[in-house]
């Protein structure tokens, strides 16, 4: 059996591949590098993105492609942001929103985890409420706000109800997906070790589903945060304080693009911050412990 068609070996554009490879060459001594280099490696790429985005924006603005009220100068938005930051208001907005979102998200996790477990493992429950969970997930938060305000008034309860209705289905679905992907040999091993339903869930299913669950948590956080913004935009009251959603809505109401963009930047800032400070390290730990996660 000598190789008859040995020439047909390369089926892809080599130049592209080579370029990508160059970007991706693993650093052999990666863990011996000094701290400052590792920080540089984490911090520089996002900064590059930031500089690029601002550069393009500035260029678009300089071309006067759109009138100022449609696309304000980066400097104008920067000014607005700076004013809010130095006056301490921005911190207030962020604090109001973030503490609510975190609290709501934690409650959501506590409720959604058992739901996810039961849906994933009990056939009847899955058939009965599995589709409902996905349906609820695709129901926009704004749909709940009017009903919630009617039922609970403009109170924190309303905000949390909307937030939970947004985050629970998403977290539960993430856990279900994670559990579905567990190699079946692991729960079987648990079973022969004598793990019943509860011990099996605790010792086998939850840790085994963790990578998928974490992905679900990330999406769940996104849903929480978005639901919160929706709730804050619609339900405003002096009792509730001004969060980022309310700040955004002010800008929207006044058709004031610098405020709208400032709010977007602040919301993005929180989103990126939570990702970098919470989910990224968690993910790194979870995946590394399992020998997974190539480019992390």
């Amino acid at each position: 059996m000598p190789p008859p068609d040995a020439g047909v070996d390369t089926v892809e554009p080599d130049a592209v591949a080579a370029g990508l490879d160059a970007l991706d060459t693993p650093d052999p001594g990666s863990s011996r590098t000094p701290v400052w280099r590792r920080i540089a490696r984490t911090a520089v790429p996002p900064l590059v993105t930031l500089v690029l985005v601002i550069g393009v924006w500035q260029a678009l603005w300089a071309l006067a492609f759109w009138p100022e009220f449609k696309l304000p100068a980066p400097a104008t938005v920067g000014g607005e942001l700076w004013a809010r930051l130095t006056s301490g208001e921005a911190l207030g907005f962020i604090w109001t929103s973030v503490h609510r979102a975190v609290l709501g998200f934690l409650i959501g996790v506590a409720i959604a985890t058992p739901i996810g477990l039961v849906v994933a493992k009990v056939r009847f429950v899955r058939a009965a409420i599995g589709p409902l969970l996905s349906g609820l997930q695709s129901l926009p938060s704004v749909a709940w706000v009017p009903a919630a305000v009617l039922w609970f008034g403009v109170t924190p309860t309303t905000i949390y109800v909307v937030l939970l209705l947004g985050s629970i289905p998403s977290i539960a679905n993430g856990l279900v997906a994670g559990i579905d992907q567990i190699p079946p040999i692991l729960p079987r091993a648990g079973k022969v070790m004598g793990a019943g339903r509860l011990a099996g869930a605790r010792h086998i299913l939850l840790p085994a589903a963790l990578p998928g669950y974490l992905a679900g948590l990330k999406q769940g956080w996104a849903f929480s945060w978005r639901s919160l913004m929706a709730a804050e935009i619609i339900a405003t009251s002096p009792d509730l304080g001004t969060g980022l959603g309310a700040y955004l809505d002010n800008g929207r109401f006044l058709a004031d693009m610098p405020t709208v963009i400032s709010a977007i930047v602040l919301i993005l800032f929180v989103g990126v911050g939570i990702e970098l400070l919470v989910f990224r390290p968690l993910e790194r730990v979870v995946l590394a412990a399992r020998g997974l996660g190539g480019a992390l």
Partner: protein
Amino acid sequence: SRRGEPDGAAAPQADQGAAAEVKLAYFPNVTHASALIGLDQGLFQKELGKTKLTPVKFNAGPEETAALLGGSVDIGFIGSGPAINAFAKSGPDTVRVVSGATSGGAQLVVRGDIHSPADLVGKTVADPQQGNTQDVALKKWIAQQKLTGVKIQNLDNALTLDEFKKGTIAGAWVPEPWASRLVLDAGAKVLVDEKTLWPGGKFPTTVVIVRTQFLQQHPATVQAVLRGVLDANDLAASNPAEAKAAVNRQLKQLTGKTLPAATIDRAFTGIQLSTDPLASTYPQLAKDQVTAGIAKSAPALDGFLDVTQLNAVLTKAGKPAVDAAGLDK
């Protein structure tokens, strides 16, 4: 370093005669009665002739403002607050107010146990939205009354009614028909009628705003729409019953619901349909934004109004022309 403004915005556009299509924005709301009546009776289309009329319904001012500034609609019925806002953000090259539509029709209605402004201290009063016409009016009034400790709650008008019924708010500064609904459905009483705060009892509630580019290119079309407004107002004056029926027909068609006869009757007594933009009130409204704390300085209103087309229409109809109070440059 920004390149010069795009040509379109700087140099006045040539008159291109009647437009092929005009997109007209409005709310399904009693304060937009001129628009509703005009649409119901086909008054706009009659005046527009071959120009195609596309009515565009909005539920709130900010969306309509964004659509105007983004060029998605050409002419809009809009609250005076959002109109000032849209102008302040973009300037006379983008939008201008060409006519009034409605005046009056906002009241502070309160629970039975509130007898004087001082009784509101420590209570919650609702208004539709931070920075809108009623919000500014309420905040200014509170400042004038030197009240401290009145909580202001922004609520959708529809929710205001429910919250009032529940008793979580002591009063609300709301436009028609909500003031009437609060009075008739929820037993509220009027503490302040906004009319009484303005000279001559008139203040602009709804105005007609036009994209400047459209105004310059198709003044004939703008005139046609304004004639439609005039016709609608005339109808409302001559045959109020038919006008109310027209409004209700439109509401039914747009939202599936109608207003009870009592509510619409009371609402109509509160509002006045008139094309007079009440130009002299605007400097005061702009200053009120500062008093109410939603703007740092009163927006400049040079060029805010352009009543040329309105006056042409009025003159032709044999009515007195209106004054722009110097805001047209």
